[in-house]
């Protein structure tokens, strides 16, 4: 697995993602500077969490104009794997690689805590290590994670099985009570139609090692590794 982690000015989970990819997964991983154009030899690009360009204007709105993003779009078009976590997910929706938008949490507050996620599609390149409907416990840390999308697109997303993770109860029940940010139908993570671009608000890299509260995030990286061989 050859991975690149994009560093926008204001990215702050870049080192975390690089650590998990190289030290935990043993991948050949490197940073990609936002002003660079070179994605040569990579088979995975990670857009990490943080506050790219200070999240001024709108989260992820300025990042989409950065030089590296035109390369990432081309890379994704050719089938390369792209994972956007938290702010990375926001960059992916802003740049049109994923449908919908992420707006202010319903409570208008930043929330950092472990939440339960149900794996609603264990048949993606990012989730084969999980079981269908398995409940994971993964941290979130965001102020703008309320996923919104228009009805027509939503219908299409359901048709193509694009919803990967949903916020749920410890038993896997999906309801408003377990929705931390007001996202449509408790959406926490989605893939594009082609299945090679994943965006998610929770942080799997924060629970991918033994020393953490749990290791539920490991499966995501392991799935990618398995897929890439």
């Amino acid at each position, binding site marked *: 697995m050859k991975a690149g982690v994009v560093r926008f*000015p*204001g990215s*702050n*989970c870049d*080192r*975390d993602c690089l*650590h*998990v990819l190289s030290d935990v997964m043993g991948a050949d991983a490197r940073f990609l500077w936002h002003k660079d154009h070179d994605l040569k030899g990579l088979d995975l690009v990670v857009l990490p*969490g*943080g*506050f790219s*360009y*200070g*999240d*001024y204007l709108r989260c992820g709105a300025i990042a989409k104009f950065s030089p590296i993003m035109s390369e990432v779009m081309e890379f994704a078009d050719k089938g390369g794997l792209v994972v956007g976590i938290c702010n990375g997910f926001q960059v992916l929706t802003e740049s049109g690689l994923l449908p919908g938008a992420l707006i202010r949490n319903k409570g208008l*507050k*930043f*929330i*950092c*805590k472990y939440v339960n996620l149900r794996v609603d599609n264990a048949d993606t390149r990012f989730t084969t290590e999980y079981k269908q409907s398995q409940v994971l416990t993964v*941290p979130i*840390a965001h*102020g703008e994670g309320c996923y919104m999308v228009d009805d027509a697109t939503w219908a299409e997303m359901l048709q193509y099985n694009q919803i990967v993770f949903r916020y749920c109860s410890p038993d896997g029940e999906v309801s408003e009570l377990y929705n931390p940010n007001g996202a449509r139908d408790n959406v926490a993570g989605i893939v594009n139609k082609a299945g090679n671009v994943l965006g998610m608000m929770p*942080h799997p*890299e*924060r629970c991918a*090692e033994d*020393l*953490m*509260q749990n290791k539920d995030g490991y499966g995501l990286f392991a799935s990618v590794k398995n897929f890439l061989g």
Partner: protein
Amino acid sequence: MSKVYESFNYPQVSKEIAKGMGMTEKEFNQACEILGRTPNYIELGCVSAMWSEHCSYKSSRFHLRKLPSKGKDVVYGPGENAGVVRVDKDLCIAFKVESHNHPSFIEPFHGAATGVGGILRDVFTMGARPIAAMNSLRFGSATHPKTPRLLQGVVEGIAHYGNCFGVPTVGGEVAFNASYNGNPLVNAFALGLVREDKIFTAEASGVGNPVIYIGAKTGKDGIHGATMASEEFSESSESKRPNTQIGDPFKEKLLLEACLELMQTDALVGIQDMGAAGLTSSAFEMAGRAGNGVKMYLDSVPLREDKMGPYEIMLSESQERMLLVAKKGREQEVIDIVNRWDLDAAVIGEVTDDGYVRLFWQDEEVASVLAAPLSDNAPLYQRVYSRPDWLDDMAKFDQSEIPVPSALDQIFYKLLNDPTIASKRWVWEQYDHMVQIGSVVLPGSDAAVVRLPESKKGVAMSSDCNSRFCYLNPREGSKHAVAEAARNVAASGARPLALTNCLNFGNPEKPHVMYQLVEAIEGMAEASLAFNTPVVSGNVSLYNETEGNAIQPTPTVVMTGVLDDVQDRITSFFKGVGNKIVLLGEIPTKIDASHYLDIIHEKTVGVVPEVNFDLHTALFKIMEKGAKEQLISAAHDVAEGGIAVALFEMGMRSMIGAEVSLPAKGRADALLFGESPMMILEIEPKNMKAFSSLCDKKGLKCQEIGTTGGENLVISCGSTPTLNVSMAKATAIYEKVIPELVK
């Protein structure tokens, strides 16, 4: 007077003008003496800022020397931007706590945010990447109309800055007391990691070396902020909003990365952040430390606003700025790195050998002050202090005046309903406490623990101060602050290592306040010596008074500790059912000075329990060894609310109750809610023998008081159940207090 100077149209300097800048007539005369003439307006601005209480520590310096600051692992003690202590060979932690009380009262969001920004800069100025932040917050009474807005603003400000910067805010404390109604406290702590050979200090050495300004542009915000922080508050203070600064955590994140990248090159000689008193203090301090001078061409400073002259530029407290000294000839390399991070960089001057800070405008000298004498001869006050009579009156409390209440269950619920005791989840969930994936004990336990990259070790930290104790007995209370912070660190299995302090007091010109300060410093010195935990950095915040009412003395302590193997860390929560509950320490017999007495009986009186140093030293050894041998499942320090609240807090996370029996000596409310120093532990039955013999060896009584399990917390004193409360009901109360307060 030069033509250029005259063009600024600054007022003629006089003692009245000096007074307006916060200087006494005596200080003004002293300044004239050092200069050998009357300073001009720019020079007076610089001197007054450098000599403000905030920058010069003129009321506290004499007594601060009593604090022990040396130790075999101490690399840098007080006097640097942050204290530095070795934790694993050449791997060091750099840390400091600092107040931002005054700005946070005037503008809670930005005041707290820039407090975080300032302390982060202090840490990375030393070359250390910040890996953890904490904060110690004090607000007025929950019923005071300003409290909800202040709490909300301060927490959001801290979250805004820390989250965006990408430092995990791993813990802290929040307490409420009416003495803070007009003076909330915001003490921000940061801790960073640095290799010993990569530590940078703030020295302008090397004559001819360029002085380079980097970071955000300079604006008019915060002009004379340090002086404002050295005055009492009055009703007009809220009109001082322009004196507080606006922070930009995104800029700071860029500044961090740019600085750390610069420090990897060998182009850098010295670096100092522009904090309180802005460019003035960084220029004077860097020159003074190296015994050199600097020339600065102020019209080269990147500006955000028009119509700023030398006075405004020297005293602006705009955030996210650094002053560097680089090697001559390496300017471009420095500028390129800084520009790569989209920040401004400008060569604004050079190091000289004449000892003067000389300021130029349009190539004409408009101010010149000798650097070293200004700090060496800064005013030093040995202010008058005397013990107030009311301390004795308050100690004359006889607990038999208070009958033991019959409905202790209801009292217990009422205590959980107090915001100082209640859950702080609402606070910490707004902080990103997991970024950098180093947090291995999350908020809610006694101490936060972070792992270290490239080391097996872990660092624990805890911030504490029981201001009620300090109010009733400043010396003993201050010892308690050190002891409690150390116990919390020890509860995680770590060995207490070193501490930083933030001394928050009222107006030192009042003898009883000065008495509190002196006693607190001496108490802190005693405890730090006894525990061998040197005070490596700190900050003093005085004049925390509004309309003549001082805060309770609040010498905040942030203790750090080391775990030799971070995997051995202990949290505060019960892990299973049927485990033994053990108490180490003295079971209380008095309700004196307790939170219970304060909240339930509305009395802040009594004798503060004594801190027994030997007991603590033994306890620390037991915790360290017990953690290493993995004998301890959970550990929790007993604080406000006594044994009853501590047991509830241990069970609340996993909804595990407990059945506990306390020896029937003394009154039930003292046993349940009294506050002598204690630690409660959960030990699996299979480990009980080994743990008990460990206690024997260290000379501490291992008191087995009960078993974990059940849906209720049941405590008997003697044969009858004294307390029988539902964990579920108690948790519901405990969790809803703060969210309802801010509604």
